[in-house]
């Protein structure tokens, strides 16, 4: 394993298997783009998937299945697969550049967010969150799992520091207050499930205005 904070073994496996929800997969994909060792491991797991596929008991297809596929191939012969246009943030890891982005929304002093228009999964969605140097985020808990990957800068929680490429997984039990510790702003991609619940009287006061 490489150093730093990584997704769990189960999460990397689920990513390789294609069973992660799309918002979670987006954050893992961003992480893999910045962590070649984990990326290589996921490729290996895909080879494991290939072997398992190869070992499956075949289910017979319709007699004309091959003919139908070839007929469809004739019809669209030469079709060029359109490449997805890239969004306006050139500094993002490649997997994130393929999504349209919403406008920046002001969330508080030194703090803003924009939606990443990746497919949602129920309540779970993806945002980019940017927090200025030295800023605390409001102390909060989560309605569900929160996955974070650092794209620029660094933040620290009460117990750990997260640098570029690092991956953090916080579940509903975690109450935390990340603080930006880099001299520049910290930009993260976050998959959020459920609403963030702000802690303390100030949090309760601004909660209605801060819908991430």
């Amino acid at each position, binding site marked *: 394993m490489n150093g730093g904070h990584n997704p769990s073994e189960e999460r990397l496996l689920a990513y390789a298997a294609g069973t992660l929800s*799309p918002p979670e997969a987006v954050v893992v*994909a961003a992480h893999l783009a910045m962590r070649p060792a984990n990326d290589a491991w996921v490729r290996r797991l895909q080879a494991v*998937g290939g072997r398992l596929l190869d070992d499956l008991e075949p289910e017979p297809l319709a007699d004309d299945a091959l003919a139908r596929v070839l007929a469809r191939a004739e019809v669209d012969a030469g079709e060029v697969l359109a490449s997805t246009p890239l969004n306006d943030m050139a500094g993002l890891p490649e997997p994130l550049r393929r999504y349209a982005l919403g406008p920046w929304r002001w969330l508080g002093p030194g703090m803003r967010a924009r939606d990443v228009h990746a497919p949602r999964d129920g309540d779970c969605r993806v945002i980019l969150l940017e927090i200025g140097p030295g800023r605390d985020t409001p102390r909060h808990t989560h309605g569900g799992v929160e996955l974070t990957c650092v794209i620029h800068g660094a933040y620290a929680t009460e117990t750990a520091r997260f640098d570029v490429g690092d991956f953090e997984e916080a579940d509903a039990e975690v109450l935390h207050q990340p603080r930006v510790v880099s001299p520049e702003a910290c930009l993260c991609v976050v998959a959020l499930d459920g609403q963030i619940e702000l802690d303390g009287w100030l949090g309760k006061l601004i909660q209605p205005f801060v819908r991430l």
Partner: protein
Amino acid sequence: MRRDREAFARLFEHFAPRLKAYLMKAGAPAGAAEDFAQDAMLTVWRKAELFDSTKAHAATWIFTIARNRRLDVLRQDARRTPMPHLELVQDEPEQPDQVFLASEDAARLKSAMERLTKDQMEVLRLAFFQDNPHSEIARRLDLPLGTVKSRIRKAMIKLRTLLEDDEGGQS
């Protein structure tokens, strides 16, 4: 560009029925699984010029195409909400020149997988094939969720040890 129908037919004969089985294992009805297999093989044909046809590569490559599509198909049926193509998110090694595994790696992978315990192989297979794998595995094997997760973790760590150890401490 010239595409080889005969080579494609051989690939189709081998993999299309397995792709159908793959989606049925995730709970899709036979008709949807048949469409899925045909669609995936059409993608294989379209990208065939990129394809180097050693079998180890083919299995990984075709699995990746299938894996990129599965959520699309499974979730769409379940929720009737349109989902953009997962290829947008997860299209790593569809291009065979990027596929990590060389043929000597395939042999090593095979022997590593043979050294997993029966229990570990079982969770691995379920993790690859089920939708909502963790809770589904727990239900099927009648195990607590925590046990399933730790079994998966152990299987992964063992695979890593077997596959990464003989790379001269790389990674």
